[in-house]
């Protein structure tokens, strides 16, 4: 036994609750997210910034609900869906979650490949190494340690803020664009706006934030601090997204350089904003991709095992939790293997993951609303009237945008 250490203070007790929200939100700024933001900035300059500002409260509202459900019930979202709606809807939801997370993980490894190729490292080397590192991190670690590594990774997002300053934007124009809504009447703009919503409010993030709260054992007594964490996380994530748009908007847009993903964005920065901007941008992309490549498979495995009553948890080994470990391992190495296929159409994979996410989001949000208003489950922590109005309007907007995106994807405007 160790001697009592007086250096563990109350601040640590607060810090102990911080984490889930920040990680969940940062993981949302994954390689797909960064690509979307970069493209938004490069193509339309600062014109889309106001949407990110509007999206922040909506994002917070949804994340807060998921977190509150976790703190009140001590159960993950998948467990609640199973217990409230039975096995059939759960099965469909889990199938969609698995498909969308696997597809998004492929995109994350694409991000790793793109970032490392900027440093001249072949994807044949970087992707397998990243896959093994991510796998080891989770299979051999305990939750608390994984969380610390992930938190450290999310701090790399500061790179984007620094690179935005290096791009020397016109801050007055930036401020103006944030408060004055502008719409460019063309299909591409609308498609991109929908893409922004989709990457900001992704279904798996609700599973993630809730299971993190549960895993951490945050009780409703500590909810005030945890809620702060969730809100701060959502805010920080969106601020980072805004800075990405500012960077590419300040550098690439005036020069009229067209890009389709984050890797190209980073590469295109060098001649205009100096090679440090490229390096910072690439480091950010790498960290984001690794973070999400660890988090996405984990979220899917947790949710699926929880829904069907299989043992799960980072602290359980193969014989104790075979399905959990198997799923996790499968998603990572499947995704990494896909990336190594020569002449791969990455854009198509991104599209698939967006479509699957889009199909899942409406169901998931409605499930959430039913559960959070069920007094048998939530007790006195059901949504208040104002909260319900805000949440439903967010949901209606998110759903209509998603339906629009699906329609446009199907009709080939994506």
């Amino acid at each position, binding site marked *: 036994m160790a001697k*009592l250490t007086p250096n563990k203070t*109350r601040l640590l007790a607060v810090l102990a609750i911080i984490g889930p929200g920040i990680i969940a939100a940062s993981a949302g700024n994954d390689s797909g997210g960064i690509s979307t933001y970069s493209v938004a900035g490069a193509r339309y300059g600062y014109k889309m910034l106001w949407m990110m500002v509007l999206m922040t409260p909506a994002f917070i509202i949804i994340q807060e609900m998921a977190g509150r459900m976790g703190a009140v019930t001590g*159960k993950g979202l998948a467990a609640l869906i199973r217990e409230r709606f039975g*096995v*059939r809807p759960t099965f469909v939801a889990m199938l969609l979650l698995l498909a969308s997370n696997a597809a998004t993980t492929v995109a994350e490894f694409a991000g790793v490949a793109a970032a490392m190729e900027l440093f001249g490292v072949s994807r044949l080397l970087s992707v397998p190494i990243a896959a093994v590192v991510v796998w080891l991190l989770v299979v051999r670690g305990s939750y608390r340690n994984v969380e610390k590594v992930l938190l450290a990774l999310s701090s790399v997002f500061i790179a984007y803020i620094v690179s935005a300053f290096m791009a020397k934007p016109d801050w007055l124009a930036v401020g103006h664009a944030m408060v004055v809504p502008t719409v460019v009447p063309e299909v591409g703009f609308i498609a991109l706006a929908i893409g922004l919503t989709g990457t900001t409010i992704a279904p798996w993030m609700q599973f993630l934030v809730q299971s993190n709260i549960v895993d951490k*054992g945050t009780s409703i007594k500590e909810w005030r601090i945890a809620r702060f964490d969730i809100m701060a996380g959502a805010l920080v994530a969106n601020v980072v997204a805004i800075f990405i748009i500012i960077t590419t908007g300040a550098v690439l847009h005036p020069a009229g350089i067209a890009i389709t993903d984050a890797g190209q964005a980073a590469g295109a920065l060098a001649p205009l904003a100096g090679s440090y901007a490229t390096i910072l941008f690439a480091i950010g992309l790498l960290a984001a991709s690794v973070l999400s490549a660890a988090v996405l498979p984990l979220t899917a495995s947790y949710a699926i095992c929880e829904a069907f*009553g299989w043992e799960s948890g980072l602290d359980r080994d193969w014989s104790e939790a075979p399905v959990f470990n198997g799923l996790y391992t499968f998603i990572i190495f499947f995704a990494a293997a896909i990336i190594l296929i020569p002449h791969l159409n990455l854009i198509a994979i991104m599209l698939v993951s967006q479509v699957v996410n889009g199909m899942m989001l409406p169901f998931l949000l409605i499930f959430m609303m039913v559960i959070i208003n069920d007094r048998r489950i939530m007790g006195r922590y059901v949504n208040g009237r104002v909260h319900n109005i805000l949440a439903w309007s967010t949901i209606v907007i998110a759903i209509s945008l998603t339906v629009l995106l699906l329609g446009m994807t199907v009709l080939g405007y994506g």
Partner: protein
Amino acid sequence: MFYLTQMLGKPVVDAAGETVGTISDVAIATGEVFPRVTSLAFLGPDKTPFMLSWRKFVADVDDEHVALNANRADLRFSYLQPDEILLHRDLLNKQIVDTQGMKVVRVNDLKLSESRNQLRLLGAEVGARGILRGLAPWLERGIDRVVRVFGKSLPENLIAWNYMDLLDRDLSHVQLSVTHKRLHELHPADVADVLEQLSAAQRARVFEHLDNTQAALAMAELEDEFQADVIDDLGSQRASDILEMMDPDDAADVIGDLPYDKAEALLRLMGVEESGTIRRLLGYREKTAGGIMTPEVTTVTEEMSLGQVIEQLREEAADNESIYYIYVVEGDAHLTGVISLRDLVISEPHTLVGDIVHHDVFTADVDDDQEDVADLMSKYDLLAMPVVDETGKLLGIVTVDDALDVLEEESAEDLALATGSSRSFEASDAWSWLGRKSGWITVWAVLGVGATMLLNGFKTTLQSVVAIVFFIPLVIRLAEEISSHSLAVLIDAGDPEDRPPFLRRLLIDVLVGTGLGAVSGFIAFGMLEAIGETLKVAVTVAGSVGGTVLVTTTVGTLVPYIALKKDGSGWRAPSVLFSTGMAAIGLAVYLLLAAYLNANISF
């Protein structure tokens, strides 16, 4: 046989043949091993819920419907009784504790059987079969058929009611059958295992139902990382009550892991005596005899008669962890001897302690390493070992259960050393953890780059004799294999005294290496000849393979041998690092030899 998932939604028909609603739930009486279904819940028109007594109104039940024995107008509705459980609401899709298998599982379906018009609950289905049936019965049948083709069957995984404990609903007010096994009736170690499978909130709920004694026992069995969490979730008063009930060494273990403020608060809530003991224990260093000992020990003096000793034992036995040895002290707890329970029992009650006392006692110093103490106890088959300070004053005893924990811990550490990873680490130090865990990957990567550069350096040789490349994997693999084998032999041999002298060892290794080298060189030669390489190429490559095997065998066995001998304390580098290093050496030797032979032989 009925399954709840298949019954739900089926029509309820009254005596006149009219449908009055659809089945929404059934309730069981909880008092039996296979509980009877007592009530039927159904949704009438406009989704109005109704409940009926099964015994009074149900005439017949089959796969398609439930038939009532009265007309709609004559039905008398009832309410759920406190000892009734609704299968759909309380059990289906919920998590339960399987108190037989000691696992937390989710209920996928509930199986019921009919006998003499009574429906009884056979058990909860927790396996894949239940999930498939819940999705669609044809899916269950289909997959079952497919599995049968392979000569297996989809097993049914049923848990009987008397082996279930509910997590979401508190059963403590429900009259359960005598044979019903609740979670808190399990062995504390099993309770702890189940608790570790639950989420923090569920864990706290289970702890609320345990009484203080059970809670204290289960707490002691929990893994360290969960202990602090549970204490956090309990109220301070309850937490300190539980800690007071625990053996002081276990309690000190828990408190030592808590933040300072919390620990102080809990200690202050305890009795003066208990908190004093724990504070003293907290003063000893971790991983020493003092750190794992318990201060609760029975002491007697030489002048006492054995009758008095037995009397004293009876009084203290309830508090003391171990009573197999009784320690004899004089003056200020100065340890002078020991008597065993055996001595005590076989001697006459009027004998004096001084007549049968053994003066030669194995003792541990309070600062002794815990592993040494545990080793001594295992060597001399002791159930407890007294711990003394430098003046010989008896401070406490290390009991055999704690010693076993130590041995388990240490062997895990040894294993970690051999595999190059470490399972035990400070939670606060994420970076060094990352370094330690994946350190060998870094080593790999660095050496991999080194190997690339090495190969690049021998480009010209490789281009002229392509066949060299064929054997690179073999050489690397062989070097790794040899090194891990020799390390295993050394770890196995353990004590440096048991190892053969250096020169003899060297001779053996060179001999073995020569033999192995000759064999592999010969095989390589034959192979190359067979695929039609020139004689020069075959000799060059076969010679290099043979030479490399000789060198790696010798070096690979000798390096850990020398390192262990010099160090004395043991081999400190993990075997992964060593075998990777050996692979690099093997590759380098191989390429050098090949280049040399290629340049210098001619036929």
